[in-house]
């Protein structure tokens, strides 16, 4: 089997300073944040950045955050969910204000990436805030005019917990099918009761292995690992299933 090596992603290791341009509440625990980073130069869909916060006593915390945007230029968008015992996420969701500065390293990552030059079908599967890098891919797909078949399966606790709800509703079309799984509370009149994603629902709602899609799975670690196992059981080759774990449960 011969494969073409993907373009090399340079690894920018220099910490840059970004300024918060705007913030927007997405969910009761989540927020999207626009950041201007001079010298950023854009990023690929699916890439992430590292954020470094420093306390007055010198303590530093570094966390990786997926980027929701995939535009050229120096403005990027993050979306962050507040973890109950988080060290960094409560600050980003509750305290960060327009004009605040952040130390940022990136763009990072060449594995969990979708490039518009890819023509195979793509299945996106996100749990909670795992939608973030998948959103970048959906946006890149729309902006590039790609005709690759895209499907999204998005699992959330309730309709209130959806990130980018309006934009996803606008993107949904026969060429970009979106399936919603509500694990705790459904919208009024929803045809099925709330419940976790199951192998049966996964199979019914995703592109079949026979179509040889590339599958991107992102969200809490437990969610990602269960879904990845089920996908392999549905005969998706392991090499076609790309995963990004966000930790948590």
């Amino acid at each position, binding site marked *: 089997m011969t494969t073409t*090596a993907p373009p090399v992603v340079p*690894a920018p290791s220099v910490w840059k300073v970004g300024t918060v341009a705007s913030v927007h509440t997405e969910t009761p625990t989540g927020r999207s944040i626009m950041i201007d980073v001079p010298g950023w130069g854009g990023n690929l869909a699916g890439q992430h950045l590292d954020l470094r916060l420093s306390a007055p006593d010198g303590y530093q915390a570094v966390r990786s955050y997926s980027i929701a945007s995939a535009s050229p230029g120096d403005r990027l968008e993050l979306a962050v969910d507040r973890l109950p015992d988080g060290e960094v996420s409560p600050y980003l969701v509750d305290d960060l204000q327009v004009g605040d500065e952040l130390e940022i390293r990136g763009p990072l*990552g060449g*594995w969990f990436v979708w490039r518009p030059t890819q023509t195979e079908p793509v299945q996106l599967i996100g749990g909670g805030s795992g939608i973030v890098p998948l959103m970048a891919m959906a946006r890149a797909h729309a902006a590039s005019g790609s005709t690759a078949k895209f499907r999204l399966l998005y699992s959330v606790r309730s309709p209130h917990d959806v990130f980018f709800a309006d934009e996803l509703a606008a993107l949904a079309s026969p060429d970009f099918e979106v399936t919603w799984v509500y694990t705790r509370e459904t919208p009024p009149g929803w045809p099925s009761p709330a419940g976790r994603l199951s192998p049966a629902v996964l199979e019914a709602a995703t592109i079949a292995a026979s179509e040889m899609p590339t599958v991107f799975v992102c969200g809490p670690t437990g969610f990602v690992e269960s879904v990845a196992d089920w996908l392999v059981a549905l005969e998706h080759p392991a090499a076609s299933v790309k995963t990004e*774990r966000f930790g948590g449960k």
Partner: protein
Amino acid sequence: MTHLDGNVLAGPLSELFSVDMTVAVGRCDGCGDESVLAGAMVYESGPDIVVRCHHCDDVLMTIVRGPGDLRVEMRGFGMLRVPL
């Protein structure tokens, strides 16, 4: 916090390597599994990182941050293949 995966190594390893290492394929000395580094299991403790084989859980690599240095132990990699 549970484990993460090798995607998060992109930043720390960018301090040592000039190309993205998460797409490098490593061979686990313990079980012979060959997978991209992005698929390895990553355990963080403060600034320190332990990288384990997703297949057999053997330690592949550790990254420990000291006051003036970065100490990397490539304990479980027999081979690393980096696309260029």
